[in-house]
């Protein structure tokens, strides 16, 4: 009989590199930096690690992506890949192996080096987009991430009767928020605040998405040391536990069936329902304190907020218009790390980096005290991270909820 993961697995240490343009660091340097910060945080030695997972999309050299830079001996290492959702995939693999009692102490890493390819933006055709049809000689050939998500923005505007200007202004407010927090996060890549007008007037990448609607193209890595909750006290008292692991993969019906409408993420809804059930969350808006969701594009944040049931479908505009609902002191703090938007999106790293943010917030040690969340809805300090690979119509989505034991 399947059981919930709730309270079974603990995070005892995490590490995260600064995200950005590491011209003088390779993937291996990034993996080492994140892992050694996590070792130190957990108070463990590399030799204590019994197994490892790494999420990485483009820079993979199989298990050696992890085993080689960290010199972990001959322990089992696994490279996992779910495109932009690879980071969460590594954490999920580690959690289930611990739950199965195959190991006692493991490491999960997400890492990616994007800045060696000579290009500025993520996507726009060629190698940066995900999905099997990327490799099709002709079908939807050369469609980059921005275009795939722009389809959602166009449709959202049309469905809810928003003019391009109205629609783009809602999205601009999301980017303004992300940059606001990115400016206050020393580990973020883009650390400058922007105004709504700057976002509105930025050059178009893929209409209706402009430059500031798109996440940066960055290098980075994040790592977590995990064990079973019953062993966590051996390492520290202030450990964090998993409350849920939700996962859903879409069958790719978006481009096949006219019933798919691009304005909600089917996979996110399915994974969220699983996660809320596992964690015993009845009303996510009232019970969850912090959300780090997959905002590779401004529209992705809008749709994911609705699909995580944090906002009624089609009502995001009102939320963003009237109140600062999604800021750190708002009703529902979303991407107050700065998000993928200001961290950039080193593909495999983002999922682990999201969990790192929640981990620090729950402990009260968010980088830059101005970003520290001070009031919490419950003493569990439930924090959700949402990470997805693929693209609208064909996602692999993972959701984790962590909190105090």
């Amino acid at each position, binding site marked *: 009989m399947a059981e919930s993961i709730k309270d079974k697995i603990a995070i005892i240490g995490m590490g995260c590199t600064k995200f950005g343009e590491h011209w003088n660091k390779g993937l291996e340097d990034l993996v080492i930096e994140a892992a050694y910060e996590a070792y130190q945080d957990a108070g463990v030695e590399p030799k204590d690690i019994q197994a490892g997972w790494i999420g990485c999309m483009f820079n993979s050299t199989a298990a050696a992506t992890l085993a080689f830079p960290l010199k972990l001996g001959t322990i089992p290492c696994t490279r996992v890949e779910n495109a932009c959702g690879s980071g969460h995939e590594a954490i999920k693999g580690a959690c289930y192996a611990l739950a199965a009692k195959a190991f006692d102490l493991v490491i999960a890493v997400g890492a990616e080096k994007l800045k060696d390819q000579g290009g500025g933006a993520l996507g726009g055709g060629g190698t940066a987009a995900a999905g099997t049809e990327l490799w099709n*000689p002709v079908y939807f050939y*050369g469609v980059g991430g921005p275009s795939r998500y722009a389809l959602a923005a166009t449709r959202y505007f049309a469905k809810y009767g928003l003019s391009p200007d109205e629609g783009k202004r809602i999205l601009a407010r999301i980017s303004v928020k992300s940059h606001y927090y990115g400016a206050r996060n020393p580990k973020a890549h883009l650390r400058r605040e922007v105004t709504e007008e700057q976002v509105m007037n930025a050059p178009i*990448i893929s209409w209706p998405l402009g430059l500031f609607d798109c996440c940066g193209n960055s290098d980075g890595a994040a790592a977590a040391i995990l064990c079973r909750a019953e062993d966590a006290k051996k390492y520290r008292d202030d450990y964090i536990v998993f409350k849920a692991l939700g996962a859903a993969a879409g069958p790719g019906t978006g481009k096949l069936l006219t019933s798919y409408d691009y304005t909600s993420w089917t996979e996110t809804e399915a994974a969220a329902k699983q996660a809320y059930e596992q964690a015993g969350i009845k009303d996510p808006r009232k019970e969850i304190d912090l959300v780090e969701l997959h905002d590779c594009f401004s529209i992705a944040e809008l749709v994911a907020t609705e699909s995580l049931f944090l906002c009624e479908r089609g009502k995001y505009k009102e939320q963003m218009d009237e109140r600062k609902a999604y800021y750190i002191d708002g009703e529902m703090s979303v991407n107050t790390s700065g998000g993928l938007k200001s961290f950039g999106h080193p593909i495999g790293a983002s999922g682990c980096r999201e969990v790192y943010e929640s981990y620090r917030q729950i402990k009260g040690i968010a980088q830059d005290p101005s970003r520290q969340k001070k009031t919490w809805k419950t003493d569990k300090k439930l924090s959700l991270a949402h990470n997805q690979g693929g693209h609208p119509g064909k996602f692999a989505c993972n959701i984790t909820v962590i909190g105090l034991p």
Partner: protein
Amino acid sequence: MVGIVSYGAYIPIYRMSRQILAQVWGGNAGKGERAVANFDEDTITMAVEACVDALGGGQQGADGLYFASTTPPYREKQCASIVAAALDFPVNTEFFTADFTNSFRSGTSALKIGYEQIKGKMAKKVVVSIAELRRPAPNSESEPSLGDGAAAFVLGDADVAAEIEGTYTIYSEFIDTWRREKDAFSRTWEDRYIFEEGYDAHFPRAIDGLLAKCKLTKGDFSKFVLYAPDMRRHTAMVSKLGLDPKKVQAPLFDSVGHTGCAYTPMMLVAALEEAKPGDRILVANYSDGADAFSLKITDEIEKIRNRRGIKQYLQSKYALPNYGKYLIFRDLMEFEAERRAADFSSLSHYMRERNQFLRFHGGKCKSCGTLQHPIQRVCAVCQAKDNYEEVRLANTKGTIFSFAMDERAMVKDLPNVFVIVDLDGGGRYAGVLTDRIPEKVKVGMKVEMTLRNQHDGAGFHNYSWKARPVRA
């Protein structure tokens, strides 16, 4: 009775005005414009367009398909077979495909062979496609006057709309324009020489030969469709032949341009559009000799009036905004090197999926009826496995459900407009919108399908179907 059962034409949507050329190169602008193929078009895709027009959407069992062009996209690899596949002619029965090339007479040569095949009872129905994509040297005398376009004819022995009463052909070794294997542009000689000793000398001989052979006089014809190298020579030839200018089909030099081997066939389509039962048309084409045809129009002509033909395609046009766009379309300059990976493809992959991409088949689930493209072995709705029939989608129109306009895509004409199209009658298409004005693209726009070359990854032409705003 053997003759033309149906006709069709194609003119690409872009027109370059002679003013644009005058802006770039100086000199007298002159009036008129020429048709310019989009960057994703070539003579295969234009031939398919003209055939779609001629076939009226129906592929009623032809025995063969010919392709004629002096600008074929492949120098080694038959083009007719690709055109036939894109039109979804079956591969599991006897079917004769052939390419005709190297002469501006190759279109009329193909017509003549098709006619003789049917007359000799070797075939009952043959599709003849003729397309040209001219690539004049920049700043050359011919640059303002060459154009791109295509014509297609269905020949048969039943339901004939224009009976071919007779043909007459002469050949000549005379050299007037030529391209050697590695020449990028046509070469020629002093115009007085090539016109006087070439066109003027040989062209009338074929007409005289036809009249004698068919025992007809010029007075028996209601319309003359005459090849000419340019407007001036056309006027001079009409006068030399002693014809009433009102009975001469108007040249397309100032609206389409000289479309090489497709030029006379396109004028013939224009003549057929106006022809009435009982009319007799003389068609004469020149190059390396000359071909002449006598056509007699029947009552059947009234049944094929709904073709887009020259008339509709002439009216449906966008002005090419500047010469830079043309340079990009025709790849006439060296551009900054791409820092991204080159276009990629896989021949085996492309071939294995050709039914859905070249023939544009979707899969219609036999269990639940849902249409899906690309074809899914397991139905996305009812999960029935391998239980579908292939349905051709090329003649389906649809409505834009959503779109994105990528300003950074690796294509020659930015933005690359990606569309999700809900097809009339069910099913969805995800792909690229071509022949579009970006400012006018919107959700709800009606589109139709058109075969295009997506890219040249792996060094071959990766054809598949794109959407475009409806051109009628």
